[in-house]
């Protein structure tokens, strides 16, 4: 088996909260488990677990920043609880690929749906799910469509359409005046 270089080993620690917890308790055992080259082990073992955790939190904050951009109203409704709600599960897994931010946002909304459903802004979540899928068209009847003209939520239909060539578009039809 090839030995693991320091960059790869550090990356694993930064992406996996449970592994960091184990490193804080038994660093040598985790270094062995990671298969770090013997020549590099002393450098890895010299890392302070608290500092590693602080760095991981910075990376998690960046991930959360993307979620907040995709679910702004949902996060605004959660207020100070938005970040802890993300941190609670975000530190244990890491999404991959170009749509990682959308996957994080979807998972965040799914977990909220179980615990704080009233906080979810449905049009935002619909957008995220549509972006992750491959459907050409989605229609959602909603009573909380934000209306920037009337500055209050209105009944209406959210229409999401995927183009043949580039991206997807959103249209909103409000009911009544």
């Amino acid at each position, binding site marked *: 088996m090839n030995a693991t*270089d*320091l*960059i*790869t080993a*550090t*990356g*694993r620690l*930064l*992406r996996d909260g449970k592994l960091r917890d184990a490193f804080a308790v038994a660093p040598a055992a985790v270094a062995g488990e990671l298969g770090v080259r013997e020549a*590099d082990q002393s*450098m890895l073992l*010299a*890392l*302070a677990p608290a*500092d*590693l955790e*602080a*760095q991981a*939190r*910075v*990376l998690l904050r*960046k*991930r959360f920043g993307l979620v907040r951009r995709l679910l702004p109203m949902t996060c605004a409704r959660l207020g100070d609880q938005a970040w802890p709600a993300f941190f609670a599960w975000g530190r244990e897994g*890491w999404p*991959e690929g170009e749509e*990682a931010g959308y996957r994080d946002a979807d998972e965040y909304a799914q977990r909220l749906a179980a615990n704080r459903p009233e906080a979810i802004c449905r049009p935002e979540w619909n957008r995220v799910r549509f972006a992750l899928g491959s459907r050409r068209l989605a229609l959602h009847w909603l009573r909380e469509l934000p209306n920037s003209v009337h500055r209050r939520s209105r009944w209406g239909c959210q229409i999401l359409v995927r183009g043949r060539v580039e991206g997807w578009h959103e249209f909103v039809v409000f009911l009544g005046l």
Partner: protein
Amino acid sequence: MKIGLGYRRELSAWIDSGPPGVSCLEITAEHFYESGEAGRERLGQLRGRFQLYVHGLGLSLGTPGPLDPERMEQFARVSAAADPAWISEHVAFTRTSEGDLGHLNPVPPTKESLAILAGHAREVSARCGKPLLLENITSHFRWEGKLTETSFLNELCARSGCGLLLDVTNLYINSRNHHFDALQWLHEIDPRHIVELHLVGYSQAGERYFDDHAQPVQGELLELAREVLAHAPVRAIILERDEDFPGPEAMAVEISKLTALGERN
């Protein structure tokens, strides 16, 4: 000396108004990766009015193995459209062979890292046909290696032929979080390497300092920047505000702080 700021969409109207004191802009390459023809046109407009520099966040120069060819191609395309005086990236890794970490992390100060970074830096510079500057980052953990950070950076610049983009805020934050003397660190850096400075306010939570790029530049940062300017022939200072953008008047105040630095030098 050129004074300017990082170009951000939120600031574009203010930038288009031609704010006094702003003579250059730093373009974040990744912000233009998917912008197509409209992005190239925008870069063309900006290029006609300001000296541009192109700054990368995600080439991950410190990752072993080849550079990501798609990202390299996208970066080179933005560089070609902006025709900058120079390009820049970080002394960091943002991904491993196993996945993306989404942000900058410190590379271990080893001979192996030096070889990887220097090789990647030369490749990026050659691909874009532009001089490359390398930027020091903040990190909450610090590697203990045979090389100090300053000897690592000096050696990296010498080997790669790159200059240094000294982020004064990052230096200050690291010196507070890791309890070292920022001035001593500065004087260990070969002044000939330092070409550009980044400045933005820091934030603090408990005993830790953070670079959230959302605060006005504090006095102690200006003091440290003055020391850098006395030490090295800096050619540009960039305000790197990314969050909580203030209104035009407050932005003008931030720029005037940098202008005053340049005038005193």
